[in-house]
């Protein structure tokens, strides 16, 4: 039988990238969005800083696009190798296992569409600003799509923190895993509230 193989390192990389840089970027992105609750100018100012960072395209490629493509594509492969059985074993953690896979697939689709609606439009000559987002969420379909997408993405991140802590061997005892569950719920509630408040600032 084989000894160590690449699978182990790929899974560890998958876990790491989900938090650093993707999780960090998610929070940062939602905080920039949150400035929309202050004023249109505040949002345009914050988005402008992000959009005008030096070497922004390299930052995007290495901190966002490559990690998210790897995490997303490999994650979908992982999701489809599971045989879910919450019907038989309906425990909290088994539900979280299923929801982690569902939210991951939703997040991946949402992010793909979201990048097309915003970032790709920049290459086509548009400008990312308050009005652009306002126009998108004026359509009820896209509004619901964004709400579902943001909630799914934040859920995937928060629950992913819980699995991250086990994957890297930080939370070993049942007690520490239980406390981490509460932390994950707290993170989910706080970050998704920030994300949703930001969306509704454009409505």
């Amino acid at each position: 039988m084989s000894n160590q193989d690449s699978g182990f390192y790929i899974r560890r990389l998958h876990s790491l990238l989900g938090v650093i840089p993707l999780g960090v970027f998610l929070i940062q992105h939602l905080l920039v969005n949150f400035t929309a609750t202050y004023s249109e100018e505040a949002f345009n100012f914050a988005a402008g800083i992000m959009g005008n960072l030096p070497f922004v395209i390299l930052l995007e490629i290495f901190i966002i696009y490559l990690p998210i493509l790897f995490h997303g594509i490999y994650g979908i492969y992982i999701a489809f190798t599971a045989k879910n059985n919450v019907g038989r074993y309906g425990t909290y953690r088994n539900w979280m296992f299923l929801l982690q896979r569902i939210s991951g697939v939703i997040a991946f689709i949402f992010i793909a569409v979201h990048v097309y609606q915003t970032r790709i439009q920049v290459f086509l000559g548009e400008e990312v600003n308050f009005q652009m987002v306002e126009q998108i969420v004026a359509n009820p379909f896209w509004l619901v799509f964004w709400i579902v997408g943001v909630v799914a993405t934040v859920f995937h991140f928060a629950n992913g923190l819980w699995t991250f802590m086990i994957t890297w061997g930080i939370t070993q005892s049942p007690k520490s895993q239980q406390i981490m569950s509460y932390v994950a719920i707290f993170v989910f509630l706080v970050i998704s509230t920030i994300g949703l408040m930001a969306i509704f600032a454009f409505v």
Partner: protein
Amino acid sequence: MSTTATETKTIKLSIKRQENPEASSYWEEFEIPYRPNMNIISALMEIQRNPVNAKGQKTTAVTWDASCLEEVCGACSMVINGNARQSCTALVDQYQQPIKLEPMSTFPVVRDLQVDRSFMFDNLKRVQAWVPIDGTYDLGPGPRMPEKKRQIAYELSKCMSCGVCLEVCPNVNNKSKFMGAAPISQVRLFNLHPTGSMTKNERLDALMGTGGIAECGMAQNCVEACPKGIPLTTSIASMQRETTFHMFKSFFGSDHEVN
């Protein structure tokens, strides 16, 4: 002739049957006379004595695996009313009828309720779930085991390789090669052992191979379903930590590969 009041109480069983590994499965109903304090095995033995199904048709006796009949060998594991467990300690009186018996679906069926658990045994061999003490000369007494480690090891040593943790795991299936909780927990057991720990890196390497620990999805069904109450998810998390350290140590180099 005087008629005595005949006992009409019966037990209804619904059994998922399969003639051979290639055949397709089907359900067959049975109704057998009730006796007090029966377990699933004694119900199956009743069918074996009189292989007639609920329609009164003669049929083949149902095949199942069993050995110790006291829940220490793990051989008689099956899915009873949707839950994987040992059939020897599953008491008929505690189940809603008809009692549904199915083979564990994660393993290939040999016949009826009998499954082939080689997948698990192969993985136990692969992770070297033993303490190597064979040599060409007497190696003498091994190091003493600290009491605290012994207490943990005792809990882990209760594993009877029944396969229930693999059956309930959403990541152990025909689409993945994941070995499941039992072999991972056995690595923890033998790496805790003072003599066993001398070869702990080989076991960690095996855990880092295809189907190894990284494929755990943390649904944590294993620890809920384990009939021996083994802290399987603690074992998995412990081995996650050990493999993380092992990864860094083997890449960056370390004099503490074996403690």
